[in-house]
Each structure stands twice: as C-alpha cells, then as structure tokens.
C-alpha cells in the first residue's frame, strides 16, 4: 500500500467487502475453536465441586485449588491434628487445609513436564539436523536410487506408528531404552525425520543452486557455502518444519503410554492419571492441560512470521 502512487486496488487483491467477509469467517471460526480451550482454562480455576456441578457453572468464584493439586501430593488428616500445626506458609497450604488435608510433597507433574520439554525439543532438533542434511544431499547430489530412497523415507510414515508398537516395545526392552529420554528422542526422531526430509527438500529445491555455485567459485567450500548461503535462505522452511515436528513430539500419547512409566514419562500420559479423592480431579487435570499448551503457544507465536511464510511453501518468497 504505497500512498501517493495509486489508490485503486489491483485486480488480484480482494476488495474491501470480501476482506470483511473473510475476516468475519475467520473470527467466527476462531471463536468456535476457542470454546474447548476456554472451557479447559475455566475448569482449571474452579474448585472440584464447581467443576462437576450440573448444570455447569459459568459464574463461579475462581480458585487456585486445581493448580495446587496439580503440583502437590496431599494426605487427609483429622481436624485435631491440623489444629496443632503452625499457620499455613502459602496459598496452597491454606487451600489444602480447608479441605482437611496437608501437603506431603511435590507431585510428579514438574518432572514430567521437563521430560516433555527435553524429549520434544531434543527430537525436534535431531530431526531438523538429520532432515536438513539429508534434504540437502537429495536436492543437490546425484544420490544413487534417489527416488527410491525418497519413497522409502516417505513409506516409513505409511504404517500407523502404533502398528509397530509391540515390536518397538520388545526391542526397547532388549536395548535398555525403555523409559529413557534418549529412547523417546530416538523414537520421535524416527517418526519425524521423514516429514522433515520431504518438507525441507521442497524448500531447498527452491533455492537456486547458482547461489552456492557462486559462493564456491568465490572461494568458499561447499560446507561453508551451505552455512553462509543455503541455511539463511532455508530458514523459514526450517522453522515451519521444526514446528510440525515439535507439535507431533509434544502431543504424542500412544508411544508415551506404552514405553514410559516413570523416569522418562512425558506429560500427556501423566495428566489423565491425576486422581483426587473419590474420582478424577478435574481442576487439576485442566490446570495440567492449560500449562501444557503454553510452550507450543509461545514457540508458535514467537516464530509466527517464519511459520506463515514457510507454510505457504515458498509461494510468497522472492
């Protein structure tokens, strides 16, 4: 929109009316899509009785009980015993005592969350590293059987991963990889790397090889040219691919249930196991889910510019 040149809009750009309609559709869709997320968040700040009341409460007094329960383990005590204790030292302690309980220690949520971070980011980094180098080789070199290899790489995604769950379970037990972070990183990398190779090959194919050739003639080695010329131009594609890989690894549930139980358990299999007294502790489950959404949200928002450009697969580049 360069002011002073022309105010007439081009024929390929949508007019004001279609823009408004498009915006309205997007807003309505966003609102509908937000309902479950809003519900999860609201549940996370309800008390357990409010969370299961019927009809559901829309107006209620917010409480941090869900978050307290998420991060602590508690035990029930008699009123007499609680009266002998010194005054509560924090909000959570106070809320817990109102329920005739005392905090005994931290829950497993924090370590599970850390496991999720390590495994998801670790496998994403590894997928991108392997994916970029493999995609570059497939894009630039005469790899023997290139098309067959590319098809093979894609074909690893054709079987539903859970179909190989039992063999992997047995294999991991033999190799001592069961319930280890390394095992989960390798597994998620194996699933993601095919996607990464295919996406990244597309992005790298689009970078004319004359760029590297010019650099190589100018006195750079191929590796130097790769870092100085190819990587910067593939950045948007790499970011988009990384987000796809991260979202898969972060949300993965089936393998995590099967292969992790303690040490390396990630947050997704842990959250549903949060039990309160006499049933599921829904506010705590909702609190765990809400916090679980944060890293992906932050990552995506921080990189949204690259992501948007990347997802259009180069169409807006140039």
């Amino acid at each position, binding site marked *: 929109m360069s002011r002073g040149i022309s105010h007439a809009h081009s024929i390929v750009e949508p007019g004001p009316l279609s823009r408004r309609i498009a915006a309205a559709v997007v807003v309505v869709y966003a609102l509908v899509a937000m309902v479950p997320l809003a519900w999860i968040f609201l549940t996370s700040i309800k008390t357990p009785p409010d969370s299961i009341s019927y009809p559901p409460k829309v107006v209620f007094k917010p409480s941090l009980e869900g978050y307290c329960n998420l991060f602590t383990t508690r035990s029930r005590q008699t009123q007499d015993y609680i009266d002998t204790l010194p005054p509560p030292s924090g909000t959570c302690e106070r809320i817990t005592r109102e329920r005739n309980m005392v905090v005994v220690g931290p829950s497993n949520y924090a370590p599970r969350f850390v496991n999720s971070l390590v495994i998801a980011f670790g496998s994403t980094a590894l997928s991108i590293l392997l994916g970029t180098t493999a995609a570059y080789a497939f894009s630039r070199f005469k790899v023997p059987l290139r098309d067959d290899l590319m098809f093979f790489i894609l074909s690893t995604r054709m079987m539903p991963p859970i179909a190989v769950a039992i063999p992997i379970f047995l294999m991991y037990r033999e190799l001592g990889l069961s319930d280890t972070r390394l095992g989960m990183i390798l597994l998620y990398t194996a699933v993601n790397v095919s996607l990464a190779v295919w996406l990244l090959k597309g992005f790298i194919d689009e970078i004319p090889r*004359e*760029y590297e050739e*010019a650099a*190589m*003639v100018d006195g*750079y080695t191929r590796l*130097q040219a790769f870092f100085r010329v190819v990587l910067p131009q593939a950045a948007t594609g790499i970011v988009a691919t990384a987000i796809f890989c991260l979202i898969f690894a972060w949300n993965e549930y089936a393998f995590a249930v099967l292969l992790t139980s303690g040490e390396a358990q990630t947050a997704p299999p842990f959250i549903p196991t949060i039990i309160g007294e006499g049933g599921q502790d829904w506010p705590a489950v909702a609190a765990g889910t809400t916090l679980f959404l944060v890293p992906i949200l932050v990552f995506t928002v921080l990189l949204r510019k690259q992501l948007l450009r990347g997802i259009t697969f180069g169409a807006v580049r140039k």
Partner: protein
Amino acid sequence: MAEVLLSGVSKRFGDTEAVSGLDLRAGDGEFTVLLGPTGAGKTTTLRLVAGLEKPDAGRIHIGGRDVTATAPAPRDVSFVFQQYSLYPHLSVYDNLAFPLRAPARRLPEAQIRARVEQVAELLRIGDKLANRATQLSGGQMQRVAIGRALVRRPNVYLMDEPLSSLDSKLRAELRVELKRIQRDTGATLLYVTHDQAEALTMATRIGVLDRGRLVQLGAPRDIYEDPVNTYVATRLGSPGINLVPRSLFPGVAAPAATVTIGVRTEHLRVQRDPAGSGRVARIEHLGDQNHLHVTLADATVVVLADPDAPLAVGDAVALQLQSPLFFGADGNRLRH
C-alpha cells in the same frame, strides 16, 4: 591474469552433447567472446572452466596449470551468472563484499570497504549499498552481479550474458565500461553472449559455437569478413548476410561446387535498370540509411542503400556483387 586452454573437452547431459571436443584458447589479457544461439553450449563451457561441471573428456588449463580435476575455489576465477546470483538475504554491500570475505582469501574489512565502494562507484550503484539485494531493479541487480566479479582480481573473469537483462542504453554504456576495465587491467575475460553487437564491440577474439562445437575462432573482422561456413556468416551482421542460390547470379565467377552465394547488405550495388532481374519490394527508412528489399526470382535480398538514392517500390533494378562469399552444398566456404 592467465591464459585459459581447453583441449578436446566434452560434456554430455544424458542424451545431449552440450560440449563436444572443444578446443579453445582464451589468451592472457584477451577479451574472448563465445557467440552462439541458445543451447549452443556456451554456459556449459563457462561452467567447465569454473569447475562447476566435470568434463567427460579433455583437459582444462588455467595459467598453464592443469585444473581439470580441481575444485572451483582454488581455480581462482570469477563468474557472473546469467541469472540468480545475488544473495537475497544480504545487502548490496554484503553481496559485493562476499567474495572478499571468503575464508580462503579473506581481506581486512577496511580494504574490503575500499574495493566495494570503488566498484559500486564504477557501476553507479554507490547509493544502493545499504539496500537489500531484493530491493533493486533488474538492471541494478545485474550490475551488482557484475560488481561482485569485479571486486576481485582473479585469474580469469567468466561472464555469462551479463548484460542480457539490461535495457539497451545501459547495455551500450556497460559494454564500453567493461571493455575499458578489461583493457586497463589487462584482465583475461571469457564472455558469453548471443548478441552480435556485444561480440563485435568488445571482443579481441570471437569463438563461434554451434551445438557444442567451436566452428571458428578469430578476430571480429575475420569472423565477419571471412566466415568458414554459412552458420558463422549468419551469426554476424544486421540485417543478416544474404544467402541466395548460385543460379540467380550466373554471371559471377564462382568455384564449380558453389551452391549458395553469400553477400552482405553493404556489398550489393543497386541500380535502376528496366532490363534488371530484380524488383524493389519494400523500402525501410532508418534515418541514416535505407534497407531495400529486392525480390530476385523467388528470393529476396536486403540491400543497404543511400537514403537519397532515387528508387521507389516497384522499380526494376540490377544488382552487382562485391566480394561475394561462396558456399558448397554442406554450407562450408569454397575458395577460388
């Protein structure tokens, strides 16, 4: 600066023989132009010299050193690509400085700055140094691409149709500029074009390529006046040389095997002659000269004529040939 020598170089891509048995010497300090239509193998030849392609056969020497198996960087050449050579993620300044920052021959930043500014001035892009490379017009981008070659003092400059995307005024200016730079620095330049004006004005020697073969190598005048076959003859001259059947000029003394007579537009004398076999079909007025299109039996020849020659469309004329060229059935030149 150094001499470039290709001996018996061949390169295939699948079924196409892009370059076949090419022998070429681009002398030290010479401006050698490779001329040929699209697909003649010009780009491939430059890429072979730069080391971006490996020849299937033959040897390549730069400055007396056999570089046939050498990687591009140590050959120390500069390459201006036909397209795509600016890094979109870098500024114009950084694009120009890029070759000087190569780890293999890194210069101090102060020297880099001096060189970049000097070259930018020369190519009149001094005010664009801070721009991103993508914020330039096509002509400016191409000048940056040329500038990126000129910041270095390599063994050889290789340029692949560097002026083809410029408008004609800038092209004419840069033609003179490039020639001047080359003469002043004594650079060895291997320059590819399909534009005959560029070839004629800049070249020390012109090599004419046809389907991967070098057909003729010589000074521009030799190529123009003394072509070895009809292919070379039609490469130069605007309008092109007239090629007419020998039978249309029975009075001309020609070698026995002559099938075609070639005569350049400026080598035809035309006179009004009611008994003449030609007829003026069309007159193109170009200001300082006229092109007469004269039909002669079923052929048409173009004649360069004085603008004030008293001729009109429909006039019967007689044609006289000066220094005609004779070609045999295979298109090769025949000499007396």
